[in-house]
């Protein structure tokens, strides 16, 4: 019964942690992309002849900004499906 309580506690905090990882990562990525796209739109309005080159750079930078967020999603998925924090409980339960 004790073990089950400890298990439930670890699962609960892991759930909250997963939510924070994905949520805060998404927040940062979206705000970053929004600022970059605002600059792109302003630049395209000032110099429409540069729009193709700027657009290519926009996609490159989109991938770079998304990187940390996607790495965070990968780590969160690891915790969701193969939680390493449960190892201690599993050894205690036998």
């Amino acid at each position: 019964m004790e073990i089950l309580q400890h298990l439930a506690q670890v699962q609960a905090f892991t759930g909250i942690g997963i939510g924070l990882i994905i949520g805060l990562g998404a927040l940062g990525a979206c705000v970053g992309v929004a600022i970059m796209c605002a600059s792109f739109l302003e630049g395209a309005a000032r110099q429409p002849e540069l729009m193709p080159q700027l657009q290519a750079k926009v996609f490159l930078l989109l991938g770079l900004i998304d990187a940390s967020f996607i790495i965070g999603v990968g780590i969160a998925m690891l915790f969701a499906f193969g939680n390493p924090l449960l190892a201690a409980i599993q050894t205690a339960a036998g």
Partner: protein
Amino acid sequence: MASEHAEHALTPTGYINHHLSFFTKPVGDTPFWSLNVDSLVMSILVGVIGVGFMWLVCRGATAGVPGRRQAFVELAVEFVNDQVRSIFHGNIKFVAPLALTVFVWVFLMNSMDFLPVDLMAWVYKTVFGLENWRQVPTADINTTFALSLSVWFLMLFYSVKAKGLGGWMHELFCSPFGGNPLMWIPNLLFNLVEYISKPLSHSLRLYGNMYAGEIIFLLLGLWAATGVAGTFFGALLSTGWAIFHILIVTLQAYIFMMLTIVYMAMAHESH
């Protein structure tokens, strides 16, 4: 065997873990010495197909009016050449083919993600008799780290070649804060962080995108297990995610290539 398969199919975690386990063959004692045979075979197969196609087209290339295949290969080569020339201002004889190889190979490896997971699992089981086989090599962290560490070794090699061993050590200890002996340790730490974070971010970005894409495909497919409404919405969102994933596959290959070129360019510049 039947109960093991039943356990794989009946719980969401079991389903996902089944689809995410590699076909591993140990060649030594510790877990470090185990090969992910599926990643190796798929990456070699895809590389041979991609580079082999370009080689075959180049063998039959004409200087006159090009055929469609030759025009396609020329399109790819010119695209990569433009990117390299805009960033790299030295001898591009090595960097341009490197960039083209990286782009074509990573793009083909990533596009193995378009094959539907459940259908391919059924094919692998009935046709080849394989219980676990992952067909996207870049969703394996070993593959992406292999690629980025190769680029990293090339970067170190070209740094030493362009600046000389003495010049490179000088730059390691004296930039960016200056040559004062008090600043040697901060300079070294700064440069070490840069040297470590480059291959890490290079590989983890590609791995994370492909891995997260696969997980989302699996999760959307799991929705179908909840009934008719789940199947309908799961199929709808899977289609949307697959279309978005086409962009991600191409974009990640392009970013990997661009960063390779940028790292090579940064290695060649000397002050």
